[in-house]
């Protein structure tokens, strides 16, 4: 099992699940071609792994999607799962047991118990550019004026004004993005056990993840749809999930259980 020379096979580790969890069948994971995903069990926990060729660099679209596909399939099957960061590769199954599961069993188990019945939902939104830029021109006379000024100048002569215009627009977009992200968190946060917000930016004003209990999934989705209705034509909203708790796993393992958000 534990060869010392570079070998043509290693263990790609997706995440940790309870030992009795069903393994997602026929879900393609990482690798070219992807090998079957199998559990490596120890006591009450198991790692989901598949064999890969360690000589091939990782990170093709198929690899990235495969990683998420396996973990999300587990989460969608209502099995708690602690995802590893993309690219976790261990020498072999014995090492997964001896070095990962055996020493950390208690810790993983506590985190998995805390996750029971929860999954991550991620909400993303992008502005309809023209609509939002129009809003800005209507509401910021200084920006509109600068724009007219530029239109009257030959292109070569307006570089400074161009930069200034872009800067104003960028600032205004960022401010709006922040306000919209606040609204998202205010509307959906109360339906979730935990919220993780990504920084608002002009290109992705709305981007947050929520850890939602199963019995609130429908309500959460309805609330997100309600917000999408409010923002119709202005922000295109997308809801992803149920997903593995990518944004919450580390926090959960460190906190050793659900106490962190109950």
């Amino acid at each position: 099992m534990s060869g010392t020379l570079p070998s043509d096979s290693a263990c790609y580790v997706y995440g940790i699940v309870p030992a009795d969890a069903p393994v997602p069948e026929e879900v393609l994971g990482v690798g070219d071609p992807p090998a079957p995903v199998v559990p490596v069990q120890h006591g009450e926990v198991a790692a989901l792994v598949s064999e890969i060729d360690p000589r091939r660099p990782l990170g093709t679209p198929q690899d990235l999607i495969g990683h998420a596909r396996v973990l999300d399939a587990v989460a969608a099957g209502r099995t708690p799962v602690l995802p590893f960061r993309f690219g976790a590769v261990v020498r072999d199954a014995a090492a997964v047991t001896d070095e990962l599961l055996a020493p950390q069993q208690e810790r993983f188990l506590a985190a998995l118990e805390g996750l029971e019945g929860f999954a991550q939902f991620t909400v993303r939104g992008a502005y309809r550019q023209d609509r939002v830029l129009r809003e800005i021109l209507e509401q910021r006379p200084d920006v509109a004026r600068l724009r007219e000024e530029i239109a009257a100048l030959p292109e070569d002569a307006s570089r400074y004004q161009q930069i200034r215009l872009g800067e104003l627009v960028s600032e205004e977009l960022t401010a709006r993005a922040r306000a919209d992200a606040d609204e998202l968190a205010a509307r959906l946060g109360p339906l979730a056990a935990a919220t993780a917000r990504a920084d608002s930016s002009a290109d992705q004003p709305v981007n947050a993840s929520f850890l939602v209990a199963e019995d609130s999934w429908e309500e959460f989705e309805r609330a997100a749809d309600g917000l999408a209705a409010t923002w119709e034509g202005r922000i295109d909203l997308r809801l992803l999930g149920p997903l593995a708790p990518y944004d919450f796993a580390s926090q959960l393992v460190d906190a050793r259980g659900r106490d962190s958000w109950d």
Partner: protein
Amino acid sequence: MSVAPRSSNYMSRPSSSGLVDVIDLILDKGLVIDIYIRVSLVGIELLTIDARIVVASVDTYLRFAEAVNRLDITQDRSEGLPQLVNDMQEGGARHKTRGALEGVKEKVTDLIGGDGEEDEEEQEERPRRRTRPARKGREQ
């Protein structure tokens, strides 16, 4: 899968995550295995990570200005997902995924064929004009 995405009236509700979403979802997220495993960790070359490129703001601002100048105020149709937004992803909040996106680009067409997210992928991955030399993810 036990949870079929229900129909939503106003938001998009993809049944599986497309490439761009996946990159955002998983990169830099999740448990770090190095914390637990030292001896038997296999160092594998990753095509994705790294590539945190700081782009001069001026470049970004000029693109905003261009977008505003292009805007036809007399027209009230507001349509189409922003090309600008795509451009901004390179200069904006997503530097960290740039390497991945680069490495990924060559294969995006294969992917679109089989992944059932055609429209979205096309929108998000549409080739864009570059003002800087592209940093290539190393393909094998």
